[in-house]
């Protein structure tokens, strides 16, 4: 495990959590992105496969672990928290109960995403288009071009490296010190390689690095180590 999993965005320090979130110690804030609750049932509803209906529970369990460990004052979910606008109708009651339990006693901020522009009725918390904390701005979709201090989700970054002939592909936090893009937190959320074109205009090419999520720790990889998919 790397000695530190901390990096500065502009001048604000953040810690990368192996579960796939960021920790802002000053604010005692836990930041996660792309929870995609009810993605499984969204597929089922569209006749695209009856996937195990436990993705929301699995995602919540992971979130629960983080909340228990860190006791955040605020949880910020950077959009696409719900996979579609009808997720609130399909979500299981027990999952709603767990979510409400997590929300109790702390602030909870939902940033709107393209999948969930409106909050479902089952949840409480503030629903915002974006949120500014000092020189840091939290939003769902990264702004094209330069956007110093932006923390976003939406793209589901993963990083791939090659070691001794084997490829290892993991979710990652992508950052160049000016902007950070969080990996998807949802159990059924796939990923897009940070070497994909979609990332190319967002980061200073040389400064980009990926914090890869391992089972135990987080590993920082410079862009020179990262390979595109298909390599």
């Amino acid at each position, binding site marked *: 495990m790397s000695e530190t999993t901390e990096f500065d965005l502009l001048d604000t320090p953040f810690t990368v959590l192996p579960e796939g979130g960021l920790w802002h110690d000053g604010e005692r804030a836990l930041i996660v992105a792309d929870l995609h609750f009810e993605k499984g049932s969204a597929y089922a509803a569209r006749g695209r496969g009856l996937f195990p209906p436990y993705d929301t529970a699995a995602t919540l369990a992971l979130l629960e672990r983080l909340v228990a460990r860190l006791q955040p004052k605020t949880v910020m979910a950077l959009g696409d928290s719900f996979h579609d606008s009808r997720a609130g109708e399909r979500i299981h009651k027990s999952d709603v109960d767990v979510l409400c339990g997590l929300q109790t006693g702390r602030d909870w901020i939902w940033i709107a995403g393209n999948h969930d522009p409106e909050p479902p009725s089952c949840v409480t918390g503030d629903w915002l288009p974006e949120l500014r904390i000092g020189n840091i701005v939290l939003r769902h979709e990264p702004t094209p071009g330069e956007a110093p201090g932006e923390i976003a989700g939406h793209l589901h970054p993963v990083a791939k490296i090659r070691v001794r002939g084997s490829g290892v592909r993991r979710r990652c936090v992508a950052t160049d010190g000016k902007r950070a893009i969080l990996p998807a937190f949802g*159990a059924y959320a*796939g990923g897009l390689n940070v070497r994909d074109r979609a990332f190319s205009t967002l980061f200073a090419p040389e400064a980009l690095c990926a914090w890869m999520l391992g089972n135990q720790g987080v590993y920082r990889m410079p862009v020179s180590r990262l390979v595109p998919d298909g390599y």
Partner: protein
Amino acid sequence: MSIAQRIEDQGLPPAFLRWFASRGWSPRSHQLDLLEHARGGRSTLLIAPTGAGKTLAGFLPSLVELAHREPKKAGMARRSIHTLYVSPLKALAVDVARNVETPITEMKLPIRIESRTGDTPQAKRQRQKVDPPDILLTTPEQVALLLASREAEDLFRGLRRIIVDELHALAPTKRGDLLALGLARLRTLAPDATITGLSATVSNPDDLRRWLVGQPSNGGSLPLTRSPAGHSTSTRFTGRGNLADLVIVEGGAQPDIHIHETGEHLPWSGHAARHALPAVYEEIKRHRMTLIFVNTRFVAEFAFQELWRLNSDDLPIALHHGSLDVAQRRRVEAAMAAGKLRAVVATSTLDLGIDWGDIDLVVHVGSPKGSSRLLQRIGRANHRMDEPSKAIIVPGSRFERVECEATRAAALAGEQDAETVRIGGLDVLAQHVLGMACPWPFDADELYDQVTSAAPYSALSRADFDAVLNFVANGGYALKSYDRFAKIRRNKDGHWRVANPQTALRYRLNVGTITEAEMIKIRLIRGSGGGGGLTGPIGRGGRVLGELEEGFVNMLSPGDSFVFGGEILQFHAVVENFAYCSRSNASDPKVPSYAGSKMPFTTGVAARVRKMIADPESWEVFPEQVREWLEIQQKRSIIPGPDQLLVETFPRGGRYFLTCYPFEGRLAHQTLGMLLTRRMERAKLRPLGFVATDYAVTIWGLKDVAHEIARGRLSIEALFDQDMLGDDLEEWLAESSLMKRTFRDCAIIAGLIERNFPGQKKTGRQVTMSSDLVYDVLRRHEPDHVLLRAARADAARGLLDIARLGEMLARVKGHVIHKPLDRVSPLAVPGILEIGREPIYGEAQDALIEEAAEELVAEAMGSA
């Protein structure tokens, strides 16, 4: 009774007698036998070697019956197929159509014969449903599709005969499961139809006889078992059940099998047998047509390239393997049939099927890995049954030399060691259940009876059937949240019907049990000339040469060269579904390092190998260098007895090695290696990695295992205790990438995950549902879900070979001997040489990331 007398008695129609005579043939005894069985309304299994006229025997009763059928009334189309022929190969269905057309045309019989495969144009397939031919030649997948259509009842109501070709190859596979379920349905549509199975020689004909016909439907009457440890471990149907009749054509002359003795140095490891290829080339020159079988595509490419390098006489030598473009393969087959080739290097793609020409020598490069496989491949040579087929086996290494001797002995003893049948997969059943709901609603009780009448499913419990039914309906999850999205539903009278037309369409698009690895097509583009690779964007276009597994392409870096289709290609990039490559002028391609054979050797051969190694008197048959190798082993270490497990430990290059010799095949060894390293890790022995070959497992690490044993801190018996198959296995399985691959296949077959279709553009990974993620969630929330059970059952028999490992551990219990050495032993050398050539196993991908991270630190800190 003389044949002439029998022909008269059987009343073989005069037109047929004249036709046989016109060809200079007379009907063979087994052909008349089949005619007789068919007349008596009996289903029959015909076991005969290649070249015995099996196909004609299968069709003769149909042709005779159809020749004497009442002419149809004018303007009235017949709506029903008379004879359904099923083969595992598309090409075979097409070729057989051509072959059977010959007698039909020459005798001017009023019979229409057509083939139907995935390649048949849609319009023709549609027409075949309403205006079917008398004889339809097709594949198991097409049978499933026809049965799932509304025309099925009309199509098959008048079905008289079913012929299943290459039954020995079909029955032990998931495609066999699919066909067995289809046959069960056909039996209800056409109860009077008889079935004929055509098979090569197998170990247990009774299993195939049961497979062919309906079994009594009292549930659980035919449990399948694996016979006890230490002996052959094949799956058997036990109990009584119904049997098809049996007709056996005895094999021809004993084959003539040589093992190539090289004057060169016989390598310590490897399979490619480079040393022997000049000798193989000389054999090609001495024979009319030589068929050279190899075990993997990589060895095929290697051998083909080497032979062309040696080919100073410019002999026509061709290459045939499953990754080559189909059109290219057909050209090679046609050239073989026309006698235009002198040699073909082939993989298992030429194992089955019609006769491709006048082959007078079969060469097997590398060990054939089993007696049945060797016999089947030898059968490709010399189709005159009364002359011996001639074959040469070319061992690639010393261990292979021993293995080839064992395989040869087994083959000469006529030992059949291929699996004959299997327990029906629950994933295949799920696919079938959905198919059955497509045309008309079904009754669950009736379908259960029907399914259990198929031998592979005869032991299926009602509870498992219901679990599969629920899976198809609403996913079968304990959390019932998908009822309103169900794929099949019960109607008012309790019958199950498909919920909507889209579900039926999806069924049709996803039918089948072949789940290939993700393949990437190779496009040939023009190179840049220089060595610097391409500059600028890679355009579209370029000829498609064939396809490669995604996993292999993922290993290539731009600029890497590799051999494909006999050419050296340079890899540039993957764009969408294509790997763009150019011709390379590299003389030494980076031939993939994992060129090993993927198939483990059979238990029968393994037992013979253990016995041979244990008995120094039997070493006399081996050449000097192999004998010497074993003798030095005897001096320096130990020659293990046939039921002993030898474990050697020795230091080397700053590492401590442990090598054990179970001789149980690479799949079981990979699993063993994985479990042993886990256990050693827990014992703080700090293992670093391992490699598995067919013969041994080699583990290396940082701690001296011998020292720990000497100090009494580690028991070697305990290290190999069977309990490793308990929690350790469960824990490892859960994370294993092999398990995930197995799960993916089951999920596709069962209809949870849709197939990727060729030509379909790959969508971004973030919008597709990944089977790995689904697996992780399902495993944690519902570990006993029917799909996980199906995947575990597959893993146990397939990639992980747990059954075989379990039998080995039971066998060696109390017979594990540890030999501490101060240096590597002769038997251990091959394993050591594989390090670096074989992928290093270890699912601890974190360790790899960590290693990369450490490298970076070292680089940054300037330590070398």
